[in-house]
């Protein structure tokens, strides 16, 4: 789509973006507030950040969250990629409709339902709740997001590439490993990143499935937020936003550079040829 960018278009974009970003910007700004009163500006300070690094409980929670996110994102990426392959490559197998349903349903399923149902499963089979149950729960819902991301790349993947590899002497597994995987790798990586942040962000599912000693950062933030807004929380949130934003920004800049370079290369090749 193109055409003229009207005033209406410009206004809606500015308004929409302002709406999306203003609360985040305010949150970040007030994490540097000298005063404990979050809504009154009393000068610049980084003292709340310093306080964070002396808060053992918070650091513990952050460490748990990080481990859960790394582990669950990695397993979810493998499972989600397999699920995406199954969805795009195999149009006929018994129970495909059920499978498709199970992949897409968690994308919209309310967290409370997923959280509660998994907890009840773990209780029913006598699984102690804690680090492992949170990780398993996160794998389950984030693998579906990975599946959707990878699937959207696989749909446009030229399957004759894999056939060519087999034709040149690869076994089917080797062909996948040497050709398909490198080609869809960017999608697999963004799937991993998505799974990682989903796990990092999750409060509800983790709350249902956590046990003693396994408090995640969102759970910790939540319990403090209930007591009121504090600059420490603003500081934690700012750090989290910073990490995620840096990751996403780098990924998209790298991706965009590659796209631009690719376009230039193609133009040049067409001129030479």
């Amino acid at each position, binding site marked *: 789509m193109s055409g003229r960018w009207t005033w209406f278009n410009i206004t809606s974009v500015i308004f929409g973006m302002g709406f999306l970003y203003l609360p985040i910007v305010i949150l970040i700004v007030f994490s540097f507030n000298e005063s404990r009163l979050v809504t009154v500006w009393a000068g610049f300070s980084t003292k709340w950040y310093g306080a964070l690094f002396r808060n053992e409980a918070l650091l513990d929670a952050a460490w748990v969250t990080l481990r859960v996110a790394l582990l669950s994102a990695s397993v979810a990426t493998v499972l989600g990629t397999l699920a995406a392959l199954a969805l795009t490559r195999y149009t006929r197998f018994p129970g495909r409709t059920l499978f498709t349903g199970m992949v897409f349903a968690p994308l919209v399923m309310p967290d409370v339902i997923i959280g509660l149902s998994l907890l*009840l499963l773990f209780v029913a089979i006598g699984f102690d709740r804690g680090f492992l149950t949170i990780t398993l729960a996160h794998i389950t819902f984030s693998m579906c997001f990975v599946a959707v991301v990878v699937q959207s790349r696989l749909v446009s993947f030229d399957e004759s590439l894999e056939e060519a590899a087999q034709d040149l002497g690869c076994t089917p597994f080797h062909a996948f490993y040497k050709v398909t995987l490198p080609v869809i790798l960017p999608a697999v990586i963004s799937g991993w990143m998505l799974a990682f942040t989903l796990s990092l962000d999750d409060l509800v599912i983790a709350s249902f499935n956590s046990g003693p000693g396994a408090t995640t950062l969102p759970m910790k933030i939540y319990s403090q937020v209930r007591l009121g807004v504090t600059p420490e929380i603003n500081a934690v949130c700012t750090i989290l936003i910073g990490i995620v934003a840096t990751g996403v920004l780098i990924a998209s800049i790298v991706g965009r550079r590659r796209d631009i370079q690719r376009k230039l290369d193609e133009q040049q090749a067409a001129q030479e040829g």
Partner: protein
Amino acid sequence: MSNMFRRLTIFIPYIWLLVLFLLPFLIVFRISVSILEYGSPPYVPQFEFESWAGFIDKLGMLNLDNYRFLASDALYRNAYISSVIIAFFSTMFTLAIGFPLAYGMARASTSLRPILLMLVILPFWTSFLIRVYAWIGILKPEGLLNQLLLWLGVISEPLTILNTNAAVYIGIVYSYLPFMVLPIYSTLEKLDYSLIEAAQDLGCTPLGAFWKVTIRLALPGILAGCLLVFIPAVGEFVIPDLLGGSQTLMIGKVLWTEFFNNGDWTISSALAMVLLIVLVVPIVLFQNAQAKATEAGK
């Protein structure tokens, strides 16, 4: 691909989802027809599977007390109704803000578009909890919004927004906006602008062309966006809990309270089952839309 590889590709994720997604629902169902007991676990199953014959017999003797209780208590009934109403209206508000934003993005120049897209995606990656939390500081009585309005002289007394339904609406619209914008944007971006010119060439007014071509072709994206907002919003917990007040009745919050504060697993399970039933139709709609989009992409 060889059969072995193929089987594993399907088998591993399939089994995983069966055990950790489908089976839990069956257990939720079982517990929802169990009797509450104070102990660990705090329920007595009434529904053990022994044989098919026994299974059929027992179907008749299911303990539906929990569901009867849900139906008899106005609190739960109202919670479902108000969840659906809040989710529906916030979906509409999100559409009202999201569509013009997506439309504006799609009409931007090709060099600007990726940047705008990234700007919409970025909050989507940021923690939900944090984004909801950010609004507390803005909406509370001594918060920034009231400070601004007082300073402008629009109001003389601080407004009570936090801990009301209005705050819940703001929270949902804000948190789910990217889910609305992204599917609409992706349909609008693919839309061939010459279609609109053709419609105008054939006698449509610009507004007519917008309605008959742009909106019409963006419908799949609009539908996907609305479902992506509506379904999770119905079961939302964090937003009503942090931004809503005591009178804000939403089923996700009720379920959480029953489970964590009252320790009533059987009622929580029954609540989850009913919530699932409420959401079955929109979820099936969503899946059909997804399947169609996948087919179209091929």
